[in-house]
């Protein structure tokens, strides 16, 4: 942050440093590549847009909505990845928590707010179990959370069918206090454009996670634990506690999305969330997180989520044949990362 000739300790300019502008320094941030990629994708879709609406506030309301439910969890997944672990159960957790909320309200007759509270408690417990198993068994979290993923997926379907006879829970809106909960989690705002309140949650959580990662002690520990768990342990970082808390945060952010989605649609389907665990990981990696841990940024994951959101919505606005959706997605991904490499590498200087 203070690479240039700041008024710091070494009296004169250090002759061992070439001059670097503020621009170059920004270019070296992990999320910068993703930001460039996002800009590229935005410009692409603004250009190919058939309706003139993509680059408007209306269009923004659409793609931020898509990005928000990915981003809320992707930020948590990014922190977890920086901490050196994966959570494959983050996707199914969205469905599980929605079902817990739904069943508590419709079958147990609980009011919506206490049900939401219990849902978060449930998610925290599952996250803690994930973390505890990873820390205790020393097995790769990929395997542990995969087992959790399968188990929850099975429980979601089995329990829902056993209780309701169908594969979904309906009529959550009949619960007491639904209206106020909906305002907090699922409302729309800014009238002509209809932004979703999920976007606010997403932005707030991104800011908080960024602050924690860069400014709080806990953030320091996250990076250290993922960068070199042994070194972190040897310098006195509480490695196990850090990891367990990260798993809990991830599960709870998935639960937040579960609550948002189920209040919004007033129903939950047993298969919900399955598959999105990889979307979260993709967002985090596109945003600059290393799969090997120890490096990345929360804001990057949000930018990654934006890229995904823009791509899906942009294709709709562009009127492209959706048979080719995945080809477009692939090319956009290539483009986003190539822009990243080409430009940022040129600016930041050689590597070898």
């Amino acid at each position: 942050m203070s690479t240039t000739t700041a008024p710091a300790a070494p009296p004169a300019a250090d002759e061992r440093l070439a001059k670097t502008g503020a621009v170059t320094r920004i270019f070296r941030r992990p999320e910068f590549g993703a930001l460039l990629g996002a800009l590229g994708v935005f410009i692409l879709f603004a250009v190919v847009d058939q309706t003139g609406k993509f680059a408007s506030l209306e269009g923004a309301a659409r793609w931020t909505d898509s990005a928000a439910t990915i981003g809320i969890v992707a930020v948590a997944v990014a922190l977890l990845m920086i901490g050196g672990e994966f959570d494959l159960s983050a996707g199914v957790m969205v469905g599980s928590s929605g079902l817990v909320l739904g069943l508590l309200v419709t079958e147990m007759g609980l009011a919506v707010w206490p049900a939401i509270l219990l849902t978060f408690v449930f998610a925290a417990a599952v996250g803690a179990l994930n973390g505890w198993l990873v820390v205790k068994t020393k097995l790769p979290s990929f395997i542990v959370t995969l087992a959790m993923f399968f188990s929850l997926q099975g429980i979601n379907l089995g329990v829902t069918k056993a209780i309701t006879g169908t594969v979904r829970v309906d009529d959550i809106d009949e619960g007491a206090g639904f209206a106020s909960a909906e305002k907090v989690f699922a409302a729309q705002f800014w009238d002509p454009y209809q932004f979703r309140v999920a976007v606010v949650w997403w932005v707030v959580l991104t800011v908080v996670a960024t602050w924690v990662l860069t400014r709080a002690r806990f953030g320091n520990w996250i990076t250290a634990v993922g960068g070199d768990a042994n070194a972190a342990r040897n310098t006195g970082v509480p490695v196990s506690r850090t990891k367990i808390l990260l798993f809990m945060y991830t599960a709870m952010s998935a639960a937040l999305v579960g609550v948002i989605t189920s209040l919004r649609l007033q129903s939950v389907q047993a298969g919900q969330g399955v598959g999105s665990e990889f979307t979260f990981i993709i967002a985090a990696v596109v945003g600059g997180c290393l799969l090997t841990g120890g490096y990345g940024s929360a804001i990057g994951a949000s930018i990654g989520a934006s890229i995904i959101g823009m791509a899906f919505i942009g294709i709709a606005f562009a009127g492209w044949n959706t048979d080719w959706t995945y080809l477009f997605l692939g090319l956009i991904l290539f483009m986003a990362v190539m822009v990243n490499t080409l430009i940022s590498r040129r600016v930041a200087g050689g590597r070898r």
Partner: protein
Amino acid sequence: DDGDSGDSGSSSSGDLTIAVITHGDGGSFWSVAKKGAEDAADKMGVTLDYQESNNDPEKQAQLIEAAVTADVDGIAVSVPNPDAIQGALQQATDAGIPIVTLNSGSTVWQDLGAITHVGQDEKIAGEGAGEQLAANGGTKMLCVIHEQNNTGLQDRCAGAAETFGGEVENFQVTGTEDPSKTANEIAAKLQADTGIDSVLALNPDIAMAALEAKDTAGSDATIATFDLSGDVVSAIEDGDILFAVDQQQYLQGYLPVVFLTLFNENANTVGGGQPVLTGPGFVTKDNAAQVADLAEAGTR
């Protein structure tokens, strides 16, 4: 049709095992079919072995082979891809195991050696939906595909396109795993193309998402769907959804188990060389009230 394995035979009545092997995915459609099979097995007093391949033809073939190895007394299969499972079904007929096809397969069941077929082609169901939407005055239809690898969904849209008359656009969305994102994608599409006046969803959850999307986008398109859920039925009652195509998949699970049991116990065959059709039926505002409770209970 008596094969080479007459050792443990299919005679020990009262202890019959019927395998139902579909390409299903445990979702809203197939969970009802499964329920039908379970109810039938209960009533007939046979053991049910229900398996799904989640649209993977190779897996379905392997499951059929496993059932042959397990020496079941009858196999009911859906036939989304006849080429892929004909080899496995040949093993079944070689082993003297009776076969009933269900859901898709109405044109090939005889070639596969099945004793009968129960169901309704996805494509014919789609044709029905297309007709109805055209009759409602639609000119441009969005057919929302929520699973890219599901041939049944492609067939439904293809059928709808054939009878709709107007323009039909297939639209790939994220799917039931993220209904809010799906809703948002549909909303964007409706915003982008204001000419769309009909939306055909292929799943009740997608229908509810489309309903929300219509609201967000301020569109006044007509929404129709495949299959039922409690929400969908009340939406039909409220007039928010025009109709739901009901293939009565409960029967597609129920009847093959009954037929195979009767074949084993009483050498009965049904249909007289013709398939047993279960649909398409339509749930509209007129008859929605009748099926509301059944849909909530998961049998419609």
